[in-house]
């Protein structure tokens, strides 16, 4: 598992509006890459282009190439559903399916696609995924209970368990901790550290300490002004971005002088 992503000359549009301009970067396999930047700079938009969730929004489209281990995700013949089954996603707000139990939420990726799975395989997958999301010990006695009854942090880890249950190559996280308290945030950050042993992880965050704590590489996005496209300003090792950034605007942002 886990593949690398190469992004080449990527432009992202909402209708005629150019939201993100000319991004080139490489996300290494088995690493955590953080995207930081002020609100509206296009980092979430960019993240969503990596598994073609972007085009769910009417009018949204993409120019350029996104390669997963050399395979273009935006080739005409590519089925976006197939892309998404390889590149999972965790959203800003925890969104377990309200009609399903904890167990069914974990199995959602399998069951919603009506794949046949024996009960013992399903049990094993549930336990493996929940253990992978550090949630097993908290919920193992109430797997049949609704997922929406869990706390916010537990729900978010349930969503991570749901994402890793379909064994993706890459996991994208869009501000996964912004709706959580510090303790739940810590649990998720620990989890991200473990996930990078098996998966490629890309995370959008507003919290620079979080980026510094969890990521190996950091990409800083910025916009010149409202209405202008977002751009990738600087990309490098997290330590370099935070300690000796090359660009003035990166330094201003990470040192808290702006944004």
């Amino acid at each position, binding site marked *: 598992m886990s593949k690398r992503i190469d992004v080449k000359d990527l432009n992202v549009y909402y209708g005629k509006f150019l939201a993100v301009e000319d991004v080139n970067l490489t996300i290494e396999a088995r690493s955590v890459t953080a995207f930081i930047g002020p609100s509206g700079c296009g980092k979430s938009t960019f993240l969503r282009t990596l*598994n073609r*969730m972007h085009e*769910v929004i*009417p009018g949204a489209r993409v120019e350029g190439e996104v390669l997963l281990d050399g395979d273009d995700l935006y080739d005409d013949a590519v089925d976006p*559903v*197939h*892309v*998404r*089954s*390889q590149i*999972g*996603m965790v*959203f800003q*707000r925890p*969104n*377990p*399916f*309200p*009609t399903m139990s904890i167990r069914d939420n974990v199995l*959602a*990726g399998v*069951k*919603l*696609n*009506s794949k046949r799975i024996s009960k013992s395989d399903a049990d094993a997958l549930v336990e493996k995924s929940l253990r992978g999301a550090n949630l097993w010990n908290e919920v193992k006695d109430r797997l049949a*209970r*609704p997922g*929406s*009854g869990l706390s916010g942090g537990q729900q978010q880890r349930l*969503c991570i368990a*749901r*994402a890793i249950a*379909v064994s993706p190559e890459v996991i994208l996280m869009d501000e996964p901790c912004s709706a959580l308290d510090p303790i739940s945030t810590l649990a998720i950050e620990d989890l991200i550290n473990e996930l990078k042993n098996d998966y490629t992880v890309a995370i959008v965050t507003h919290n620079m300490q979080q980026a510094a704590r969890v990521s190996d590489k950091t990409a800083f996005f910025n916009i010149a002004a409202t209405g202008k496209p977002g751009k990738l300003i600087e990309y490098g090792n997290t330590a370099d971005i935070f300690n000796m950034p090359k660009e003035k605007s990166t330094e201003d942002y990470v040192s808290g002088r702006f944004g």
Partner: protein
Amino acid sequence: MTRRPSQFTKNKLPRWAIWAVLAGALILGAAFSALLGFSLVTMSLFAAIFFVVGGTAASGAVEGSRKAKDRLATYLIYGAFIVAVLPLLSVIWTVLERGLPGMTSDFLFRSMNGLTGAIDNQTVAEGTPVLGGAYHAILGTLQITLWATIISVPVGLLAAIYLVEYSTGGPLSRAITFFVDVMTGIPSIVAGLFAAALFGLIFGPGTRTGFVAAAALSVLMIPVVVRSTEEMLKIVPNELREASFALGVRKWRTITKVVIPTAISGIASGVTLAIARVIGETAPILVTAGFARGINLDVFGGWMSTLPTYIYYQIITPTSPTSTDPSIQRAWAAALVLIILVMMLNLAARLIARMFAPKTSR
């Protein structure tokens, strides 16, 4: 040491004051009503006026104008509520009072087959229980409504799914929304005539069966189902759809397995309310299913009665023109059965909504 009264409690009307105003209003109301020749209706009317005026004035004097306006608005809203509920209670009371005597097992499980005016005359002359019943009409109501539901729910559900999940606000979806709005306003007799004319064209003039009636009712039901389903699908959070897409689930599977189950309670109760809306229709049934005196279990052949048309014919053309009492009793009993059916449907809607509602218990 006693505590001094809080500065915040001043200018408050004591609790007994409002009861005193009510008592005074009742006495004054009785007095004024007696002047016009006492009746309960005029007394309550006068008492209500005195209470609203007196209560507002008392509050204005003690509590100031802001509180007084608040009280006035509160009383007026209570008044509006009472005015709205009284007719409903009165209807239920009247139907119960007149319908209960006719609710015999004979009425519920026998049709009007073979029942002639002579039998009704004999019943009145000898004072024996009323014979004949509405079994055929109950069966007809259930069959026609069932078929109307079978036609309307798939059409309405799929239209709503198209509008919410697939359309991007193009001309087609705007046209559908427009025509659904127009359909909501179609008078029911027009829907009946439409179905009669349509089936008349296909199967020859004068085609009247239960199925034609069901088609007419579905014209009335479809817009209700579309509208309520559309609203329910719209409130399903987009995050759930995205969560499903992000797991590599196809769009139509996302709709059938995530979106609809999340909204099913609202959809089910919307459908039930749509059924309750058409079950009492009379005019479209008259022109599409005709009228039958006996049991007809075939919706595709032969005339059929429903409870509303049964009531209509019992009142307009009593079985015995000379002694109409048995027919009127049967009409009231049928009205009671119809009301009970509608109430059961409403209860069912609530039960369904509760059964399917997403569970949030810890």
